[in-house]
């Protein structure tokens, strides 16, 4: 089964956006509160994708299965965000926002609650989940 990704309960303190799962995104969010970073894999071309869709963005197939990802990846690019981009992020500023390349292939944009000096392009990172509602936990990344 999956590598379980550590979950930190932030339900009391979180003041940022809380996603409202719908359609195929429900499967992803349901995984997060169990410590699973679920990725869709295409039954035809074999590619993985993020964010979830009803269609494979690579080949157009609708034959998609969910598999837990490792949550490991590398920093593809990053910035130091001095101005909070959303409500609820103020207490962390300045903080790093990175495009993470997951080892399964997909990229995603995510917060890294670390100092800018701790990150470079190519830095190995691993996922953590911050649980922000009963139904959702947001992925953040820290240096591995």
């Amino acid at each position, binding site marked *: 089964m999956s590598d379980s990704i550590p979950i930190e309960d932030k339900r009391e303190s979180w003041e*940022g*956006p*809380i*996603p*409202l*799962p*719908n*359609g195929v*995104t429900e499967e992803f969010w349901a995984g997060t509160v169990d410590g699973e970073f679920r990725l869709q894999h295409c039954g035809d071309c074999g590619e993985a994708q*993020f*964010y979830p869709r009803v269609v494979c963005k690579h080949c157009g197939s609708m034959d998609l299965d969910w598999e837990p990802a490792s949550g490991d990846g590398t920093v*593809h*690019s*990053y*910035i*130091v*965000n*001095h*101005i*909070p*981009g*959303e409500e*609820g*992020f103020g207490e*962390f500023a*300045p*903080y790093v*926002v990175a*495009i*993470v390349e997951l080892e399964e292939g997909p*990229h*995603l*944009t*995510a*917060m890294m609650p670390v100092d*800018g000096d701790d990150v470079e*392009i190519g830095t190995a990172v691993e996922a953590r989940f911050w649980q922000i509602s009963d139904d959702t936990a*947001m*992925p953040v990344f820290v240096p591995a």
Partner: protein
Amino acid sequence: MTMPVNPVMAGVAESDLGETPDRNWLENAAIATMRALDDAGLSKDDVDGVGFAGADDYMPSLVLAEYLGIDLPTHTDGTEIGGSSFEAMVEHAAHAMAQGKTDVTVIAYGSTSKTGEENPYESGQREDHPVNQFTRLAGLFTPPGAYALGARRHMHEYGTTQEQLAEIAVSTREWASMNPKAAQQDPITVEDVLDSRPITDPFNLLDCCLVSDGGGAVVLVSPEKAAELDIVPVSVTGAASTHTHRGDISEMPDLTQTGAAQSGPQAFEEAGITTDDIDVAQIYDSFTYTVLVTLEDLGFCEKGKGGEFVEGGTLGPDGDLPANTQGGGLSYCHPGHFGIFLLIEATRQLRHEYEGDRQVDGAETGIAHGTGGILSSSSTVILERGVN
């Protein structure tokens, strides 16, 4: 491929810019439109095509037409691809013109980005949005953060420096110092840019465009209609558009290459000219990096050489490629969607409307390239003095 017809930029105008606390977004668009029609020597009764983007209304061309009392237009365009929408609308108008659907199309924009309420269509990040329910949790301050992620990757792959990015802001400010309408006219240095407050490192404040109120409009007419008007004609001879992603920068296929690498060559091919022929360039400058990567993608220099290319004032008044000659989004104004102002300035330069150093001597050929979203959409328009 060639343009089916070469529309003529018959009228161009801005509304008041900067801060317009007594105006709403639609008023700014309407004022710019009426001024542009006046510039062309036309009235609203001549208009048979309407384009409007960036509106606080999801049926934009309808709201502008209704407001101005333009009934039953035969060409309508509510294309919304961000700041480059107006360049795309020029392309669409050319095709409509070739079909005989329009002789006079107005393309407009208006906003109160600075003093007005936040535009819900700009900020509208519903928590059930299929994509934004993921994107928002990155806490990215966007658009600056998204463009900065591109810049950082470019720095990594090609050795581009913050100093080189800053050169773009410095050259642009030189142009702004000659434009009384520019919000920021005091000269700056590379050091000033590097010393300005960090926003989304590697971007500092002076790497980022202004936030302004204001509107702009252009009037495109058919070559036949242009012949009836008392104007210095400037023609559209090439236009092409594309896009790569929407609201999440991680969806961009390559952070160091925009859709301009496709739209640029297509537009140049239509016009039958090359980058070497361009006398004056209007390149969307939401951020310094936007200009650098776009210049590479359009082919003004090799991929990865943009930093070197802009060094030494290349884009300034004494440079080899005069660019953003009204002071750009970085120093003149940036009311959210800047693309309309690229078309306005390109036209004025090719009309030879200015005096002294503000005028690019003998400019015959120009480019207006819009970028929308977060390096998301790209739309190139080639313009040439005269009727083609």
